[in-house]
């Protein structure tokens, strides 16, 4: 009994330094680090918001898992489907996007050769939750796109989450 209690106390005292190690300093937006970690949870199933229909929940989660396996960027979408739109996400955008882009470079090498797309552009159809920095809105055929260094993104809802699809 007392051993358990002291172990708990230890865990609590350990927690504070660990938080600092994890980069959650009091003067930094804690949400930033947390969301970055959440982004990294590849294929993390969502917390169901419905008690009923286990089958429904399962279906939904399988869909998420498949998405994750297919595309790195889409995986972070899946992991953060419920986390969309926190302010900190804007700040996390650059880092996350760069990582996603890097991971996709190899995969999209052939595509780049075919189309006149900038080197390192994410694959067409890639879904991201946040745009890279420095995007400019640009209308083509009455549809608004985001021109992000020559890569065009189009906003869409995926489930109830606002995402951007690489064109």
């Amino acid at each position, binding site marked *: 009994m007392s051993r358990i209690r002291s172990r708990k106390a230890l865990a609590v005292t350990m927690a504070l330094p660990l938080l600092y190690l*994890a980069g959650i300093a009091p003067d930094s937006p804690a949400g930033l680090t*947390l969301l970055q*970690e*959440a982004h*990294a*949870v590849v294929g*993390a*199933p969502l*917390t*169901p*918001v*419905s*008690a*009923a*229909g*286990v089958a*429904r*929940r399962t279906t*939904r989660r399988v*869909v998420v898992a498949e998405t994750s396996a297919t595309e790195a960027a889409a995986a972070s979408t899946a992991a953060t489907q*419920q*986390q*969309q*739109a*926190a302010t900190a996400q804007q700040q996390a955008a650059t880092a996350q996007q760069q990582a996603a882009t890097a991971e996709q470079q190899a995969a999209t090498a052939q595509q780049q050769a075919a189309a006149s797309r900038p080197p390192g552009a994410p694959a067409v159809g890639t879904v991201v939750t946040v745009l890279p920095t420095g995007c400019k809105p640009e209308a083509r055929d009455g549809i*608004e796109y985001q021109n992000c260094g020559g890569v065009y993104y*189009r*906003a*869409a*809802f*995926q*489930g*109830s989450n*606002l*995402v951007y*699809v690489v064109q």
Partner: protein
Amino acid sequence: MKSTFRSPPSAALLRSCAIAALAMVSVAAQAQSAGIAPEAKQILKASTDFLASQQRFTADTRNTLEIVLKSGQKIEFNSTGHQFVQRPDKLRSERSGDLVEQMFVYDGKSLTLYQPRDKVYAQVAAPGTLEEMLDFARNEYDVVAPFGDLLFKNAYDILMDGVTEGIVVGKAVIEGVVCDHLAFRAPDVDWQIWIQEGLQPLPRRIVITTLDLPNAPQFAVTVTRWNLEPSFDARTFTFAPQADMKQIELLPR
């Protein structure tokens, strides 16, 4: 175990004690896994039937969603919601919180999803009844109304599907209202519901614990206010896009 007997008990007494003890153990075991208490069923059914009989109502809610990070750390996100319902074919649902600010409007013909901060909306043709629309949104677009199951006329059957155990925990007070507290178990999910005592057995709080995810995250909804005599106007269930809003696609699932 200390014996409470002062003098050595007789063999007969011991035997009857042993039988009684065995009986108690077996009763306890039954209580643990004896299925669903009839009273729990009855209270839940009364509540879902009552809600199904309400043609128009609003519900203000406070929602809490737990997310489990890769490290196992749980993070809680809060939001508030306003639901406007008119059976059989109108719904407006607004929610705002840490994660999202959104509005759903269903007018019996189309479903609109609007995100005010980004001034974007998506609109799709939807089936003609509220229940069909909820299934349609979930199946075709992965748009899930938090605890939308309660809006179905057969909410009881949907909720009890797969439930193996159910008990009445006892009386509780939610938002100042005396409720019956029920707890149910189904494969991979435990859920609890607090139902207002009296002539209007409205659900006041629901907690879903997801057992097949690491650290069993919970989703909880508390209804802070029910209004069973709301006044809706023409705008309640219509979405009129403004000039500065942009329409975007709702990706099929």
